[in-house]
């Protein structure tokens, strides 16, 4: 029962944080549900698919949010987004040691259209405000639904991302790409391709995530704890943005012509790219240390 992938959002909070330390803001019993889903005659959830609150991580005060991928794919509606923003703003006030975002989401909840889009943009702004206040924000990505759409951008607005191999991170999800560009461009049913393109190992090789862990809640806990201290430049600076821009430009120049992630791994210098998907997380991290793009 230690799999992060298999756990619900509330199970993750229970096992990742110090036992019994999670104090929830707007718990299910306060029944703050989506005002839009009812109008569409669709089921609501009492927490609108996200639990937010304060807790302890190895004794340190953290603010935390966990999205429930089982409810509408973890998608962000108006209330869901407002809970994230409220928690982030409260963090600026209460000054915890860090904010942890346990992201599992397809992005904006399309049922809620503009309200959902506005909510996600408010979350981005709030994340950057928390960082500007000197409080590190960490994203944990290891749920079955991955982290996509606007929330994929939110993840990259944080100080560090911890992923498992099973976790996925991208802007457009596989089915969106297939729908928009055709099955010849991207076959969303090809699971190996999907994970090669968006999965934790690929993200780690590209430097898009900072830590790769096994699919275990205690591994995510240990990594999150270590990252609180590892983060050096908490606030986002113009210099950091320019460095990132330069890095992405170089990446596009080097790999823009590549059609397939495994070709990219080979282009990075990886000697046996076919072997990478089969490696356990620790062995993988050790093996690719020399080739990984060390970036944020």
């Amino acid at each position, binding site marked *: 029962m230690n799999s992060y992938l298999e756990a619900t959002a*509330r199970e993750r909070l229970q096992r990742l944080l110090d036992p019994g330390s999670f104090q929830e803001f707007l718990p*299910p*019993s306060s*029944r703050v549900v989506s005002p839009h889903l009812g109008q569409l005659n669709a*089921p*609501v*959830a009492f927490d609108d698919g996200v639990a937010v609150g304060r807790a302890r991580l190895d004794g340190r005060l953290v603010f935390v949010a966990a999205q429930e991928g*089982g*409810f509408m794919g973890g998608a962000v509606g108006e209330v869901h987004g407002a809970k994230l923003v409220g928690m982030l703003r409260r963090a600026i006030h209460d000054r915890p040691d860090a904010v942890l975002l346990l992201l599992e989401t397809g992005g904006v909840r399309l049922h809620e259209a503009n309200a959902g889009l506005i909510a996600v943009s408010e979350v981005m702004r709030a994340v950057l405000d928390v960082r500007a206040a000197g409080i590190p924000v960490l994203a944990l990505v290891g749920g079955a639904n991955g982290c996509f759409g606007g929330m994929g951008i939110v993840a990259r607005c944080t100080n560090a991302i911890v992923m498992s191999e099973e976790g996925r991170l991208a802007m457009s999800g596989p089915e969106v790409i297939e729908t928009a560009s055709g099955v010849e461009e991207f076959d969303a049913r090809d699971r190996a391709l999907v994970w090669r393109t968006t999965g934790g190992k690929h993200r780690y090789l590209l430097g898009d995530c900072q830590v790769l862990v096994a699919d275990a809640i205690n591994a995510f806990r240990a990594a999150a704890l270590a990252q609180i201290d590892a983060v050096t430049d908490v606030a986002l600076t113009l210099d950091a943005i320019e460095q990132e821009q330069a890095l992405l430009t170089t990446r596009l120049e080097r790999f823009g012509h590549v059609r397939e992630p495994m070709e990219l791994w080979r282009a990075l210098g990886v000697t046996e790219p076919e072997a990478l998907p089969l490696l356990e997380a620790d062995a993988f991290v050790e093996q690719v240390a020399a080739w990984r793009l060390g970036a944020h």
Partner: protein
Amino acid sequence: MEHLSYLFKGGTRALPRAADVVGVVGSGNLEVLIETAPLQGNCSIDIATAAVGFGAIWEAVMTDFHARWQLMDARIAINDMGATPAVVSLRLDQAVETMLEQP
């Protein structure tokens, strides 16, 4: 969506804690919010379900549930996305067990 409400009298088991939630509103699943509430000893169950037209089955499953646990002063709210009767019973039992086991 269909909304169903039941009120059961004559329960004897009081819940020790304020509130808890189990389950997730996903396909074939449901969430159960269980709370202590001053209901003159009764147990109320409110259901919002995406599967319309199964009132008789819900009533039978809820009656069985009350027979098993005999809750008093309890308010239960369910958001359902087409769970089968067995899953509904399982989640309800989990909700009560979670309330009873933790301090």
